[in-house]
């Protein structure tokens, strides 16, 4: 199952040139671009690991592509995303976020039903991947 989070996730995987152009757009808008990775693809997992510091003062997006490729060398089997943070007053939030790297096989999610009091059933989802300990997911 293909993970669809953030922007462009229904499109074919972005090439390095695509990443560069998108990141350049963010930089030109004055947003700080950073690279993050994770092996826990749950949609509510907002805390991905940071790959280095956010890039506040790089005028060219080639630096972002460089960092993405450095991250791929070490975490090529995990999800990697590029996010753009807007620090301007009133926003102070993420403006862009898109996945630039994904594992070879994505096992997807299962529905977990919890029986509560009475006949109440609570539903949640869980990635098949997170059944393995951290670091051993996605082989």
């Amino acid at each position: 199952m293909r993970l669809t989070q953030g922007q462009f996730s229904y499109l074919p995987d972005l090439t390095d040139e695509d990443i560069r152009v998108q990141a350049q757009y963010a930089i030109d808008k004055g947003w700080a671009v950073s690279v993050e990775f994770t092996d826990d693809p749950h949609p509510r997992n907002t805390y991905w690991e940071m790959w280095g510091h956010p890039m506040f003062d790089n005028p060219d997006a080639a630096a972002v592509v460089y960092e993405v490729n450095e991250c791929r060398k070490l975490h090529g089997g995990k999800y990697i995303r590029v996010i753009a943070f807007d620090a301007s007053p009133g926003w102070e939030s993420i403006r862009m976020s898109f996945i630039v790297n994904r594992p070879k096989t994505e096992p997807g999610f299962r529905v977990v039903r919890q029986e509560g009091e009475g006949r109440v059933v609570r539903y949640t989802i869980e990635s098949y991947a997170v059944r393995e300990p951290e670091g051993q997911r996605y082989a």
Partner: protein
Amino acid sequence: MTEDAQTRPATVDLAAAYEESGVREVLEELDREMIGLAPVKQRIRETAALLLVDKARRELGLASETPTLHMSFTGNPGTGKTTVALKMAELLRKLGYVRKGHLVTVTRDDLVGQYIGHTAPKTKEVLKKAMGGVLFIDEAYYLYRPENERDYGQEAIEILLQVMENNRDDLVVILAGYADRMDRFFESNPGFRSRIAHHIEFPDYSDPELLRIADIMLGQQNYTFDPAARAAMEEYIALRRGQPHFANARSIRNALDRARLRQANRLFSKAKGPLTAADLSTLTEADLRTSRVFRGGLDVDRARRAEAAE
């Protein structure tokens, strides 16, 4: 491939490309703003022509590789290396070889860390900042310190070389420094020599050129020499050249700054009654003649020379 061939133009108009790219303005600016430096200007014009032709060749599909653009600027201090690097960055941007055309100036301190593991992130940070533009490494030979084999400079050099090779499309590196020390640096780091295509030498300015530079510097700040002061300046340049730590145009700028200081002091202590704009913007002979250069330089240097003569 066939589609590519169809979209390719059959001919290229170099003159039009030259006009369109705005290279002419940069070259004219260079001619206008920089005094002397004839061999440098010549080399830059040649480089611009090469890059323009190369671009045209790529449009016709005759070449596909990005040419190596890394350069080394060698010359004495104050000969305009940084200023020319700025112009070069603009030139490269207009020709489409770098995307942003900004200049990041660094020295050893910005690249090399103090502790183990400190250097690589520092160097990479600088390289990322320079991507899309030009990285100007002043006094590059300080990176290599053969006397200390545990020096972290070597680590910075390795990262630099790797990025210079792999990210040739993303940034251009200019190494700058004194000619003889740069030569020794290249000898001990053959990796650099082979990755640098353009070696440009900056000659020292002649005395009349320095005088013209002084005129221009003053003009930019709305000051002028009176005729006696200009003669004093001429004499000053000849004397200053013979003294230690002569740094071409930089020495001239410092001399003028000090002359302005003395002029301000003179006006403040002596002037009575209202001053005209001309009074405020004229440097007189006295402002220059008080310089220690006319008395044989700094006291320390004079003492040292007397010692040597004994």
